[in-house]
């Protein structure tokens, strides 16, 4: 692994939901991403993966922890300095129908990024730059004067990517960028993202719940459960040798396009629902649904430890 470009250390995001209750959406997660690398972040709905992404880009203020970009802790820099870091990291959102302002033209949506960071000196330059950017993602530059509702879902997502690219970021958080798209369009967007990564040397944090897409896209994968990372490993290693029982259950749910294999496959079906992050279980957060849970799991929270070379998991029995 190359020298880490992004280092997240002990990141926490707690929401005060009143009545002296605290929702621990992200609870002490740490990881690092090397330059040009893609880290996949997977987990079921409500496990805190989107909140983690939004906290890293500081749409939410972190409760604790540090976020380092290229060695600088952005949680400690002043507001005015932080603007410069804004242009280093950007985000692509989940819903291409909600992420573009319906009352603005594409020119203004993308142009806004240029305006905020003073990247275009004149109106003509702004327009030219927007058209160039649109062409990079495979859209027609002449479409800049149109409104978002005139585009399809896939095209809108390309516009969302263009907006993020406009400030020339080095790190992009992809918050389930394909989950709202048709299967046929998903591949186009994924390939576009991979192309852009190669061309511009981008670093990605790929948040998703589609495990097969994550495998295709990521160098390393982190699995989240109830606000915590329970397993982190190189992509092939994680899929071939899952250590944590939760990861095993997740992987067993991936459908395989082979009826014979599928018929003989043993699926691990988890019982119960995701516990409330307001009242997480004692000890290991997964113990209430784990098929292999023992008394030790209720008493003692497992720490992340290296169970194989370069493969960490948080389970007493991994």
């Amino acid at each position: 692994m190359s020298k880490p470009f992004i280092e997240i250390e002990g990141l926490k995001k707690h929401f005060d939901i009143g009545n002296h209750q605290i929702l621990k959406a992200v609870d002490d997660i740490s990881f690092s991403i090397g330059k040009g690398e893609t880290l996949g972040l997977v987990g079921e709905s409500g496990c805190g993966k989107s909140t983690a992404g939004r906290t890293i880009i500081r749409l939410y203020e972190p409760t604790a922890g540090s976020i380092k970009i290229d060695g600088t802790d952005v949680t400690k820099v002043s507001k005015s300095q932080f603007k410069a870091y804004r242009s280093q990291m950007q985000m692509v959102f989940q819903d291409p129908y909600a992420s573009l302002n319906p009352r603005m033209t594409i020119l203004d949506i993308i142009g806004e990024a240029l305006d905020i960071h003073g990247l275009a000196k004149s109106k003509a330059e702004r327009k030219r730059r927007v058209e160039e950017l649109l062409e990079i993602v495979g859209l027609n530059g002449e479409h800049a004067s149109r409104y978002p509702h005139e585009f399809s879902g896939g095209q809108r997502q390309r516009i969302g990517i263009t907006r993020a690219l406009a400030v020339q970021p080095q790190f992009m958080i992809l918050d389930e960028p394909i989950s709202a798209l048709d299967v046929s369009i998903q591949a186009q967007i994924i390939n576009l993202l991979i192309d852009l990564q190669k061309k511009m040397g981008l670093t990605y944090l790929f948040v998703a719940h589609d495990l097969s897409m994550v495998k295709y896209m990521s160098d390393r994968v982190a699995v989240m459960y109830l606000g915590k990372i329970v397993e982190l490993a190189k992509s092939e290693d994680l899929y071939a040798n899952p250590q944590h029982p939760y990861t095993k259950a997740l992987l067993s749910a991936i459908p395989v396009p082979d009826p014979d294999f599928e018929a003989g496959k043993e699926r691990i079906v988890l019982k119960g629902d995701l516990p409330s992050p307001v009242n997480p279980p004692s000890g290991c957060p997964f113990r209430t649904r784990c098929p292999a849970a023992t008394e030790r799991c209720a008493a003692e929270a497992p720490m992340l430890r290296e169970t194989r070379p370069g493969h960490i998991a948080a389970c007493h029995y991994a």
Partner: protein
Amino acid sequence: MNNDTNRGSIRPEQFQKIDRSNYVFERIERKRLTAWQDIRYRLVSNKLAMTGFYIMCVVLLFAIFAPMISPHDHFTNDLPNANQAPSWQHLFGTDDLGRDMFERTWKGAQISLFVGFAAALIDLIIGIIYGGIMGYYGGKVDEAMNRFAEIIYAIPHLLVTILLLVVMEPSLTTIIVAMSITGWINMAWIVRGQIMQLKNQEYALASKALGAGAMRIIFRHLIPNAMGPILVTLTLTVPSAIFTEAFLSFLGLGVQSPVASWGTMINDGVKSMTLYPWRLMFPALFLSLMMFAFNVFGDGLRDAFDPKLKK
């Protein structure tokens, strides 16, 4: 029976190719419209709302042009011709000082409409700024600003207005100021609710992630998307302001003679209602018509903005 033997009895020559080149798989009948075109379409097809709209237009045109064309003026006394019934000379008759009622009705309309629109505009500006900040920041800021608004709202509206009119010189400006002191709160609450709903939309978050400041997000992204409810509130504010002005003028706290407004004219007319009914009838008729027109138009606009009522 085994599938294979069954398949063996059908030969490829027995298949025939069906021409589907002209077949339309799927057709969307509904025309593709922008949000505003859609709203306009629904508004235009609402007959009651359009009636209101036309009444508003006609009254507005008369208010602007009738005083220019009319041979009379609204303040010159003509005592020999006092209290004349409607005639070709004086379409709406004359009042107790012989002033032409037709002329005065439209002059009064100018004042009433001016007060209505001015008060609505002030409500709009204060309401958008106050409500926008309240809704966007939320938390303690919202709490504090909301308490302040509630305190003002809790004081009886008319009491504030009357007290202010006593302290200040009764004039058009005073009336507008007095109405605006409490009037903006409703607008601010509408805006606040809208902003709270919209601020977590992904386009607002995307703008924030780009580094946009609060003012940019509120005024460039959120307010334009909240324009529907704001416009509706606005069309319902205008008649209530007109009505408040008429009411204050009726109490003698409004605009002062010889300047006329519908309220002062109704006040004058009531005194001689049994003898000279036209002096009450005409201003009261137009005031009611205008109330009706604004309210049905506002209702129509609200329906047009509600996509759930899409037909």
